[in-house]
């Protein structure tokens, strides 16, 4: 008993100082050296750029492999930064006036991390490999390339549309213009690879051109990257090592961060986030930034009651977005459509549907539901989705719509909502693979994305006017004209409301005071490759 009392007394007296343990040394120019420690909630699944499709694996793959073009680095506080495409492994490129031929000249002196020079054929090999691999999810992105379908169908081994007129020149021919194609080439699968290693070896080894090389990987536990001494832009890289600990729950990450065992902690849980934002000694080191995503509730517009636009609009008026933002700790912005803030072509003059229960009730009555209606709503099993669904349920109850929530596992959920006869009303989201409206609008709302099963357009929304607009925008070389078309498309979708447009979520991250040169990237999210330690 006495021991327990003593223990309690020790705990009571031990008021910890929970401020930063180490402050920045105050250097103005970046200092080379040091190891940055961070952790992720899930595991790195693969290092093969032809397979990698999840956020955590992309942290490793993006640091190990480079592409022809990339997004500019993010700058803290500048929400427009990180979206523009810049030449990367390509010193320059030209696109033919018809938008069908892409000609790249490779940067001089780029080598793989073992010192062998990179040639254009290494890119061609990587593309052919993606097309021929049944398990690669990326073949669909190269669908516009001449001859790509012959390789996926096994009729050819080399893609006819990809040629290498000289060792440092790569030419890609498209069958139809696609103004998003350069953005597609920022994805990690478009990295040069040298033939040789088996598919299995590529899962856990990496011979790339990126700023870091693989030092060791104890799979599921810890991945260590070291600076690539042969990197073509070596002056931009300062850290000696990046050490990533896998599978650490977020609460645990935050405890480790406070103890100084980690240099950064991401997506803090609600109490931790509230606490840290209230601390003047910590708040300056918390970043949050809208990244390329959209969340909402999608409706199957071919099935009653969602076949009536007034019902869909009513639900948009009924949902209180401000309350949803509160549930997300304010780390989100209300949406008026699917294109996230910062995205090219987004109509920033559109305002989200206001919270107007009276108008919602009037629209429902007009549509023939004066007594309200009963709806089933499907979500995936995670805590955040459940919290938001409860909020939506009480908002809709206020206008007479009674909602029953069904929770499904991830795999069941994605299968079910892609079926024409599946659940008609569900939580939905779109996360960017590349920063172009094609990745949002064409994928989710074009008629060509409708299938009876596995439909990417899972609201089964079909509008000839929108289809024409999206097809024209995809092929429009003039950037301003193209942006104007997407703004029109956004207005059509805003009015037709195939989703309840809800919010775009931020990524939040806190770093130790001495972590410098790091900003959350809108596409690559946690990219520490250019960070340095001011200690």
């Amino acid at each position, binding site marked *: 008993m006495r021991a327990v009392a003593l223990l309690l007394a020790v*705990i009571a007296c*031990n008021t*910890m100082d929970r401020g930063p343990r180490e402050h920045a040394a105050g250097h103005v120019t970046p200092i080379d050296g040091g190891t940055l420690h961070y*952790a992720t909630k*899930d595991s790195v*699944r*693969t290092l*093969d750029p032809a*397979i990698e*499709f999840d956020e955590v694996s992309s942290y490793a793959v993006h640091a190990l492999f480079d592409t022809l073009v990339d997004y500019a680095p993010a700058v803290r506080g500048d929400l427009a930064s990180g979206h523009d495409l810049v030449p990367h492994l390509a010193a320059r490129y030209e696109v033919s006036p018809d938008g069908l031929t892409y000609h790249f000249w490779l940067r001089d002196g780029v080598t793989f991390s073992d010192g062998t020079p990179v040639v254009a054929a290494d890119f061609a090999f990587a593309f052919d490999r993606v097309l021929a691999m*049944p*398990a690669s*999810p990326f*073949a*669909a*992105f190269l*669908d516009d390339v001449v001859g790509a379908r012959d390789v*996926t*169908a096994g009729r050819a081994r080399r893609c006819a549309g990809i040629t290498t007129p000289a060792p440092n020149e790569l030419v890609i021919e498209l069958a139809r213009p696609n103004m998003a194609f350069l953005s597609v080439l920022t994805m990690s699968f478009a990295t040069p690879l040298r033939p040789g290693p088996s*598919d*299995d070896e590529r*899962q*856990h080894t990496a011979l790339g051109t990126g700023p870091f090389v693989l030092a060791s990987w*104890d*799979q*599921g*536990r*810890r991945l260590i990257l070291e600076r690539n001494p042969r990197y073509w832009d070596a002056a931009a890289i300062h850290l000696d090592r990046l050490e990533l*600990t*896998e*599978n*650490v*729950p977020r609460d*645990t990450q935050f*405890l*480790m961060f*406070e*103890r100084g*065992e980690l240099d950064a902690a991401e997506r803090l849980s609600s109490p931790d986030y509230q606490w840290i934002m209230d601390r003047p000694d910590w708040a300056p080191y918390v970043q949050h930034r809208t990244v390329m995503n959209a969340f909402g509730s999608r409706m199957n517009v071919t099935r009653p009651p969602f076949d009536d636009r007034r019902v869909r609009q009513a639900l948009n008026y009924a949902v209180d977005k401000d309350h949803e933002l509160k549930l997300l700790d304010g780390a989100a912005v209300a949406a008026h459509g699917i294109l996230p803030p910062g995205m090219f072509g987004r109509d920033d003059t559109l305002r989200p549907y206001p919270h107007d229960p009276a108008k919602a009730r009037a629209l429902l009555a007009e549509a023939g539901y004066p007594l309200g209606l009963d709806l089933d709503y499907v979500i995936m*099993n995670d805590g955040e989705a459940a919290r938001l669904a409860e909020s939506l349920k009480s908002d809709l109850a206020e206008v007479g719509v009674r909602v029953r929530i069904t929770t499904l*596992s*991830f*795999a*069941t959920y*994605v*299968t*079910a909502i*892609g079926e024409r006869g599946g659940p008609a009303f569900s939580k939905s989201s*779109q996360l960017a*693979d590349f920063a172009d409206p094609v990745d949002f609008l064409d*994928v*989710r709302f074009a008629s060509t994305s409708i*299938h009876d*099963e*596995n439909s*990417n357009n899972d609201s089964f929304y079909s509008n000839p006017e929108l289809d024409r607009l999206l097809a024209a925008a995809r092929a429009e070389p003039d950037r301003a004209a193209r942006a104007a078309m997407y703004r029109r498309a956004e207005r059509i979708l805003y009015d037709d409301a195939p989703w309840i447009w809800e919010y775009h979520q931020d990524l939040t991250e806190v770093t130790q005071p001495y972590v410098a040169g790091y900003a959350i990237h809108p596409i690559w999210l946690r990219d520490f490759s250019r960070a340095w330690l001011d200690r």
Partner: protein
Amino acid sequence: MIVKRIAWTVVVVWFAITATFVMTTAIPANPARALLGPHSTPEAIQRIEAYYCLDRGIAGRYACYVGNIVRGDLGESYRSKRPVATIIAEHVWPTAQLALAAIVLQLLVGVPLGVIAAIRRNRWQDHGANVLALLGQSAPTFVIGTLAMYLLAYRFGWFPIGGYGVGLWSRLHHLVLPAATLAAVGIAYYARVVRSEMIDVLDQDFIRTARAKGLPERDVVVKHALRNALGPLVTLVGLDLGVLLGGAVVTEYIFAWPGLGREVLQAVLEVDLPLILGVVLVAAIAIAVANLLADLAYVWLDPRLRDRS
């Protein structure tokens, strides 16, 4: 007898795989869709389905899976595209370390606690042990684990907060909290079992004889009573070891311990059938083998059973 038991073990393992397979067919999820994300084309989905035998009927898929297992190939994880055998091999050793450490702790703490409670029956030592057992058995793992982490790792800094550690000393240091968390329930349970067995044994004639012939009390308790009270515990250890080798989901999750439990949780959520079946196979074998060993140990401990067989 052993041959018969091994044959039964094979049947049990086969049944476990088949039952798991049947359950997964009931899930209305298409793994190909989950795999490809929002960029799937119908062609890409067909390719994936053909690649993983998903385009066949239930019988065809079953033949595909079982055929591969019989050939010693556990298949390839849908999600990471890596061989299931490799994934399991990477995670089974951390789980085994955790399981063994937990069992050792359960025995080292639970048995003495039970013995003390029995010989000090209805005194404060007995009541104290009872309260501890009640706490250990009724507090959920996530409460014990989180509290232990908060106090012993975060506040006092005696142990690492989470992770696996590199090198023997660091590994042991990382192992203490998760193993203790996992062992809490077992310690409580073992203490109660040992207490009640000891109470039964201590009332028997041969104990009275031992005392009457003047043996020191310590010898009476340890050599005569405890040895006879341990029988049921052997079976319990066998069962526990088997179950723990299948992975301890909650403990592994809280302490970021890279074991099988975490992997299987993720696999279930993603309907990663080859990985689920692989882990079920390993867990079924572990449970069956541990039970077999427990039965053999039981026979070895009890001369009456040994003579009969």
